[in-house]
């Protein structure tokens, strides 16, 4: 295959798309960030659907049955929109604007992308069978739950495939071995991070719907349902977010080991500001989330002193240690303030991975406090203390706030990940400014890893 730049050079009648690199990057970023929100919603939604349908069936719970039916309808609609975005992204933006990158990526990741395409078809079949035959399938409940699980598996395979691609772009292996590139150093951490994150995100979207329904509900029945949906979503949202700091920490460690420049830019360099905002958002999710848990129990007339303490602790650590003003803006600032010495010598550095302490302390406090809060809240729920419909506008606002914070967090993470590689699209291999086919590789840029278009990497190929 001839590299696209050569095609452009050799065929003068091919007109380059008249768009600047910055514009192209912004377009791709906007589309991808939106697409990721949809894709995450699908994958996380399928497992929540399967779990809810299963417990609704076993517990003979009409509310959960109603919710599952609503969720499958929403998932059917969002899938249609989200996958259109994905196809648009691939066909127009990637091929049109980032063709070099895309050709190189397909060469290396041909097989994972094929697997993804097959699982995409599987997802369509399962989802639309459920969507159109929901009630009929309800007569054979194990079949319906089984189909939901299959749907989830199909979506998870796609996520796995695309995580392979995304992680490869950050930490590629200098090799032609498919196995090494598939299980590159950040694949599993990213997989876990997204797996957990998608469920939390879905919970947040469900909480959002609950919050809006609570605000708009006319009668007590509608209010009770909105209240329950909000509670149900928020438990997923906060509960699953608890695992994220730890996974994220280990993910960052792999990046530190295998793509130091990216890690430096994220943690200590230019992007560390974005990371501060991220800790701030995390503080918002936990603090507002725990505040909701406390107030929701109170709304049903029960005292919940432990939850109040948890909310206060979370709030305090949010204000004191997780705000940008409490954190060193970047490592350069720490150095400039002569604070890059251990904390016992009056500096800011703690031995744990040579880190600046605030972020770590905040993360530990949030995680611990949130585990206690979710546990205590669920105990109140299990004792049957919560009457659905008791929630007020305050709780509705909290639900909506958590949802917005989680959604922003997802976008921010995407932004950080994509920018941490700059100026590369694939670390050490493909530059961003090599992308447009009218724009030949700059002489300052590195050569592509082997001549582009040499051939697809096959499962039996091995390095280097």
């Amino acid at each position, binding site marked *: 295959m001839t590299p696209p730049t050569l095609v452009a050079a050799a065929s003068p009648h091919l007109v380059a798309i008249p768009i600047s690199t910055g514009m192209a990057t912004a377009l791709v970023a906007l589309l991808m960030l939106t697409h990721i929100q949809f894709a995450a919603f699908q994958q996380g939604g399928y497992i929540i659907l399967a779990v809810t349908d299963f417990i609704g069936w076993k517990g003979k719970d009409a509310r959960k049955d109603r919710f599952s039916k609503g969720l499958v309808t929403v998932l059917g609609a969002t899938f249609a929109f989200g996958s259109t975005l994905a196809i648009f992204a691939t066909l127009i933006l990637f091929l049109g604007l980032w063709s070099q990158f895309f050709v190189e990526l397909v060469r290396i990741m041909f097989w994972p992308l094929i697997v993804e395409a097959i699982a995409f078809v599987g997802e369509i079949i399962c989802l639309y069978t459920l969507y159109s035959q929901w009630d009929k399938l309800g007569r054979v409940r194990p079949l319906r739950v089984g189909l939901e699980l299959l749907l989830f598996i199909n979506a998870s395979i796609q996520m796995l495939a695309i995580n392979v691609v995304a992680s490869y772009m950050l930490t590629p292996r200098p090799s032609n071995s498919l196995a090494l590139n598939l299980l590159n*150093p950040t694949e599993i951490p990213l997989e876990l991070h997204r797996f957990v994150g998608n469920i939390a995100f879905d919970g947040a979207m469900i909480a959002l719907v609950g919050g809006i329904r609570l605000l708009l509900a006319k009668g007590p029945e509608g209010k009770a349902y909105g209240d329950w949906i909000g509670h149900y979503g928020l438990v997923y949202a906060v509960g699953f977010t608890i695992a994220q700091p730890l996974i994220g920490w*280990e993910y960052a460690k*792999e990046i530190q080991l295998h793509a130091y420049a990216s890690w430096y830019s994220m943690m200590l360099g230019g992007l560390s500001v974005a990371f501060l905002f991220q800790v701030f958002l995390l503080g918002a999710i936990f603090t507002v989330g725990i505040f909701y848990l406390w107030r929701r129990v109170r709304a049903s007339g029960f005292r919940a002193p432990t939850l109040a303490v948890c909310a206060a602790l979370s709030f305090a650590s949010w204000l004191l240690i997780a705000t940008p003003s409490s954190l060193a803006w970047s490592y350069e600032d720490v150095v400039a303030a002569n604070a890059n010495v251990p904390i016992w010598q009056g500096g800011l550095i703690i031995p*744990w991975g040579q880190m600046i302490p605030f972020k770590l302390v905040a993360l530990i406090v949030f995680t611990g406090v949130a*585990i206690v809060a979710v*546990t*205590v809240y669920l105990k109140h729920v*299990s004792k049957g203390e919560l009457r659905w419909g008791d929630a007020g506008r305050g709780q509705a606002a909290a639900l909506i706030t958590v949802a917005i914070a989680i959604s922003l967090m997802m976008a921010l993470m995407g932004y950080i990940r994509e920018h941490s590689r700059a100026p590369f699209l694939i670390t050490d291999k493909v530059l961003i400014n090599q992308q447009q086919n009218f724009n030949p590789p700059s002489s300052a840029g590195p050569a592509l890893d082997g001549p582009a278009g040499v051939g697809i990497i096959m499962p039996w190929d091995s390095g280097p």
Partner: protein
Amino acid sequence: MSSPSQPPRSALVAKLTRPVARPLAATYRWVDERMGISDLTHQLLYEAVPRRGAWSYSLGSATLIIIVLQIVTGMFLLWTYVPSTTEAWESLNFIEHHDEFAAIVRGMHLWGAYVLLFVIGLHMIRTFVSGSYKKPRELNWIVGVILFLLVLGLGITGAMLPWDQAAYWTATVVTHVVDYIPFFGNWTQEILRGGPQMGPETLTRFFAIHIWLLPALLVPLIGLHLILLRRHGEHGSWVNYEGVESETEGERATRMAEAEYPYPAVPSDPGYAVPMDLDDFFPSQVFKDATVSFVLVLIIFVMAVVVGAPLERAANPAALNYVPTPEWFFLPLDQLLVQFPQAWMIPVGVFVLPGIGTTLLMLVPFLDRSPEREPWRRPEVMVPALFAILFLIFEALLAVNRLFNL
């Protein structure tokens, strides 16, 4: 024993077997009169067990069967294995290349250990979820935790015996980590190594620990576990107690009065002394236990034949660039260790955190003392446990990732 409902045996078969059957039956009667085998068998087999959720109760007996399998395959291995640093590897290498039967036995011992650890984990999760550790079974839970630790100990000491590269460097790492124990580190290290350095004595010591010290603790403790189990009766799972809260005093009293052996369990939380619906241990539960155990042993056998047990090059203390990878069941601990970048923090990762975890595990029955059995009504233990299990799984996966990309 023949019952009236049984069809009469064909006269021909009876006639043909009589010459053998009669003396056999007479011999059995003779022995039975002196040893009481029938009574014992009856006592062992005829008891009541909870009816619902019974497949999940077969995990305990599957654990038992695999431990027996380990003892048997271990005995066979002792026929060839030589516990010395100069000959251990040679003897296993001989097995791998010249003795197919022993190679399969070796494979079964390894895969048996893997399946055992998996099944014992499931057994623990199942007894945890069903609240089986509650009154009066607290002590049995604690015995169970000790059994689990012993099995882990058997796993790690067994991994050192081949004295190939993996074994040697695992032993080096483990005995090195031991040195971090506060105050007693050096002492323990020397005891395990048989001196300040790794050497011939190290293998002898781990061999002794593996083949007699740990089994000598394990076997009687399993006995105690089973005696306690018999004393209280199988608790089963919460599904067998649905509705106990709405029971009237009278209904409960009737249930207690009609309870079959070994119920009612004493002391007990009110309502939980007898499961609602009982079944016979023999043949119902025995059939399920046998099926599950059979499938697991079959898996072990197939893995032994198809994959077998690896044997790396003979131990070479000079190969300093060799990177030892831990057995899969120690992966979470290995990953945890990496979280502590400074040497002085290592004890936190290797002893303090796992120590706190083990202590909490032992204390579960005393931390969760409510009579409640349904898992979703016990979020106070279920939520932390869920996080703990997720943590272990995540750490293991991340360890695989790290080791693969070294």
